[in-house]
């Protein structure tokens, strides 16, 4: 059906704070098979200068997802979410996420386009602490298969 290009640049209200728990970091690290001691052992993390256990890099997506969903599900956008696959993912890290971070995610629509019958949405999500420290930025490209209008 074609995405509403007028929404490029639209930002969404920040999510409620996501408090990163130590056991959540350990659970996520275990789920991706990351046995790095800094992800599990507080003393090992502190030896590298971190205040608490360090989340594996792609954990940022878990926190960013609530933000990017606000954009993808915006009824003004016209995205058929049932046809969506994850096309591309990019992270830019200021520092890694650590247990104890309270993070807010702010999403902005970066681009919309149609390629070969697919609607493509690029969303940027900034992750900052409640105190205003920038931690990471997540860029997500999702593709709605076969939903674009023929041109």
């Amino acid at each position, binding site marked *: 059906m074609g995405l509403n290009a007028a929404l490029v640049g639209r930002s969404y209200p920040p999510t409620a704070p996501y408090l990163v728990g130590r056991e959540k970091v350990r659970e996520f690290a*275990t*789920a*991706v098979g990351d046995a790095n001691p800094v992800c599990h052992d507080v003393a090992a993390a502190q030896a*590298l200068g971190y205040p608490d256990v360090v989340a*594996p890099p792609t954990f940022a997506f878990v926190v960013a997802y609530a933000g990017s969903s606000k954009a993808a599900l915006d009824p003004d956008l016209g995205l058929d979410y049932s046809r969506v*696959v*994850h096309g591309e993912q990019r992270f830019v890290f200021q520092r890694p996420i650590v247990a104890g971070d309270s993070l807010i995610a702010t999403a902005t629509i970066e681009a919309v386009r149609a390629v070969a019958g697919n609607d493509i949405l690029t969303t940027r999500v900034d992750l900052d602490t409640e105190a205003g420290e920038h931690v990471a930025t997540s860029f997500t490209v999702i593709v709605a298969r076969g939903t674009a209008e023929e041109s």
Partner: protein
Amino acid sequence: MAIAYSDVAVGTALPTQTFPVTRFHLVRYAGASGDFNPIHWNEKFATSVGLPDVIAHGMFTMAEAARVVTGWVGDPGALKEFSVRFTRPVPVPNDDHGSQIEVSGEVTELLDDRRVKIMLTATHANQKVLGNAVAIVQLP
């Protein structure tokens, strides 16, 4: 132990790793990540939307690719940028063996500020499942 900027050159290879992906891994990742899309655990649903089988979460594959980088540098905080395209799904059959994802990496460019660019290659059944998989790390 930690890799230093002076230790690497264009062409330096990261140790290749092979990661198993079974239904167990996908269910565990679904729980830990909160991504309960049924295409990752329900084959009846997956095949009804045109997929060959249950497929792995793209973010699971990306996480395994990250392990090759963070396992090499030691400090996850060395990773400054990381990007991939999801070019092909990884089907995961419901058997004892599941599938395997093989990830290799190579330093392709030395950048300023002690940063290096790493190109990663992730394959399943000898076919690439990630495209343009690039990590930028900052080394001591």
